[in-house]
């Protein structure tokens, strides 16, 4: 008898299952609007030109050693990444109270941050500290914090289905009612899956309550640059919170904005009260990393580091990011225009109001099923679509499919 005979089958990860189903579908006009990765207008993954260039530079550089990176990662990568999030002139950086941990993608950054908070935040090894994630949120948030040991993971109000926007009063209410010291996972920009971000005023309101109630800020920043095309604009919320004196974590991912999905490049930025606290925090982070992956992989970090630390390459990268963001914006404009031209029932302003890769279309589960089964257009059961799955060749078909679905299925 296997010692694993009692192991139940885990439910499939929805987004991977969707892609698997899509691949099996032989319909000539099938469209995949599920997976969260950038695609070109030819529906291909895009290796950023600056990345190809830097990869060649790295391969040709015989001075680079092949040894293990330090446990906390490549120092030039960590500092450059934190700067991208916090800004070159960040007072926190000047005050020497910003540190970072190179991690395996955004997931790894969240996991290390979570493991640290469980061990050292709000007491020692306090698994009862409530962790709040938005309703809805990236489906992996729950798993990461649960596996980090937290027992109490709760939703906070976020998406208002009726008004197709942010439920700011529900959110603020949850902040007021949350137990002191609760941790809130905030999406820095381009909220996944809704594409709906708080306005600057709303962020200010959120910050005010969080400060007053001593709630901990954990930013998830996977789309910096992708939302508006501007790195600085997309980091406004993070920088505002830092300027308000918050201690906070930022889990950064460079998978999307560098197209380095497979290299697993992430960074956990830590903004502490002062350098003394920072030193102790990083020493414990190091212990945690040592028992998770020991040292992070070097390739992706070198690519990002070289790019961010060289002004010409940095400028080229920003251009590449803007290319991606602009294509998304174009698809948003066109989809909305086509739906309006078709006279599709409902309002479609949210398509262009929402930000980033994803859009919460507002399609209900029955309509989603119809889209998949009858139209072979694959999207998440929540109605989330990836704008990058749209191309000039398939946008008419998708718009027509949405139109047919909304008019046939209620």
């Amino acid at each position, binding site marked *: 008898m296997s010692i694993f005979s009692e192991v139940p089958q885990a439910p499939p990860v929805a987004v991977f299952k969707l892609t698997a189903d899509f691949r099996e579908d032989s319909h000539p006009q099938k469209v995949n609007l599920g997976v969260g990765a950038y695609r070109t207008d030819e529906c291909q993954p895009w290796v950023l030109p600056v990345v190809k260039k830097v990869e060649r530079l790295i391969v040709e550089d015989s001075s680079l050693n092949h040894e293990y990176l330090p446990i906390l990662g490549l120092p030039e990568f960590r500092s450059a990444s934190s700067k991208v999030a916090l800004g070159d002139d960040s007072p926190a950086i000047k005050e020497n109270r910003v540190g970072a941990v190179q991690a395996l993608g955004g*997931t790894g950054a969240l996991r290390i941050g979570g493991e640290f908070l469980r061990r050292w935040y709000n007491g020692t090894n306090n698994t009862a500290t409530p962790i709040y994630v938005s309703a809805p949120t990236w489906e*992996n948030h729950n798993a990461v914090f649960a596996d980090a040991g937290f027992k109490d993971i709760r939703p906070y109000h976020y998406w208002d289905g009726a008004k197709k926007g942010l439920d700011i009063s529900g959110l603020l209410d949850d902040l007021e009612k949350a137990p002191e010291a609760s941790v809130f996972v905030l999406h820095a920009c381009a909220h996944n899956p809704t594409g709906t971000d708080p306005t600057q005023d709303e962020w200010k309101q959120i910050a005010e309550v969080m400060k007053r109630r001593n709630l901990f800020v954990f930013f998830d920043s996977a789309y910096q640059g992708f939302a508006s095309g501007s790195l600085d604009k997309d980091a406004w919320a993070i920088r505002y919170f830092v300027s308000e004196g918050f201690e906070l974590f930022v889990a950064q991912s460079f998978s999307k904005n560098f197209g380095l999905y497979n290299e*697993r490049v992430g960074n956990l930025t830590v903004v502490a009260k002062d350098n003394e606290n920072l030193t102790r925090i990083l020493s414990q982070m190091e212990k945690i990393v040592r*028992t998770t992956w020991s040292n992070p992989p070097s390739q992706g970090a070198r690519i990002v580091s070289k790019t961010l630390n060289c002004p010409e390459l940095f400028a080229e990268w920003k251009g590449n990011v803007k290319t991606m963001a602009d294509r998304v914006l174009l698809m948003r404009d066109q989809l909305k225009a086509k739906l309006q031209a078709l006279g599709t029932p409902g309002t479609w302003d949210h398509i262009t109001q929402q930000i980033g890769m994803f859009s919460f279309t507002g399609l209900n589960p029955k309509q989603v099923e119809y889209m998949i089964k009858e139209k072979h257009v694959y999207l998440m059961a929540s109605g989330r679509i990836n704008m990058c799955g749209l191309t000039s060749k398939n946008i008419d078909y998708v718009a027509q499919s949405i139109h047919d679905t909304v008019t046939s299925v209620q």
Partner: protein
Amino acid sequence: MQSRRASRAGASKHADKITKPSVFVDTHAAASNQEAKSLFAFKTDDDVRKVYLAGREYLNEQGQPYVSPFIGKIKRRMSSDQTLGSAHPSSFGLAEFNHRATEAVLGKKSSAIVENRVLGVQTVGFTGAVRLGAELLRHWYNGDAAWQGPVYLSSHCDDSLAGVFQAAGMPDVRQYRYWDAGRRGVCMDGLLEDLETAPERSVVVLSASAHPTGAELSREHWALIARLMMRRQLFPFMLLPVAGLCHGELERDAWPVQYCQSLGMELLCAQSFSHCFGLYGEHVGHLLCVLRQSSVLLAVRSQTERLINALWAQPPVGGARIVATVLSNPAHRAEWQEGVWHMAARCMLVRERLREKLRLLGTPGCWDHLTQQTGPYCCTGLNVEQVEYLSKRKHVYVLPNGCLNVSAVNSCNLDYVTEALHEALSAEPLS
């Protein structure tokens, strides 16, 4: 009006800075681990004769980590290959890599592979493989959603190993005897006794090859251990931290794993390809899970995927691609294999030279074990005071338990190292 508001805002921020202490004020500074302390001492030592023998990496005759020019060629070719785009992401990593890595450990004709009851996962290095295996056990061992141990580690094992199991939620980490300082070999009696008294269903971590002391279990030993473990229902977690470097071939180093599998045991095996490919930075690891029945494979696979998603989502692809490319191409493989034989052979040569030198110096103690063992790691038998003498007086650094990395010894430092060892073993203890 504006300035008053501004100054009030400034004042409240200032007040925050004074009245609100950091939420991390109670976070202890972590004690630095032995390895870090040792490395720091070495780095700040300005004696020109200093030698560092406490690292894990295989070093070549020039004292540099192994860099294969052949691997360099492959990397350059890959970087200009336009067809290598972002492959479909998989939590389990590269399929071709997993296929080859699994074959390397179990052998192509393994019944477990043929019967489809093997799960192979690309991990973030060796530590990632151990961590993932630990998480799997903690969540799912014997259907117990909160199994906490005990986990048995050998004496003189890598000091971070216990931390990995504890981090995965298994606080009950115990030791079984392994290294016999007197006999300079495996303490078989003690080992068998400790396993005999271990609670049923304990997990036992065993080095398939390259134990930090260099001491290896013979085939007869493995037969005894396997029989005992099956009788007492102990679960084997095998380690291959420097796959290929002991006997020069992946499959030969992995013999103990094949043996246990052939007896029908279920097991986990963590291996690293960093050393035999010189891919340290890329961190290429692999976790193997051999099951008794193919019927549980899908369930175990799905739960493993869940665990991976919350750890690192997917492993980095670069290093695995190189390993897969080399292992799947007979010509590449042959060229790579030459390099691995060379590394294993060099370890043996250094061991011979060390033994001969120590014999000529008349160094106290028996040094046969140096050449009886294989691979890069070796225990000198030095005690704590002698290790300190070695570092403070002679600027030669070994691990606190007396273990060292023979590949760090080369023709430039051989004389100095052996003389230093001789002195440390003959000297009066430091007051």
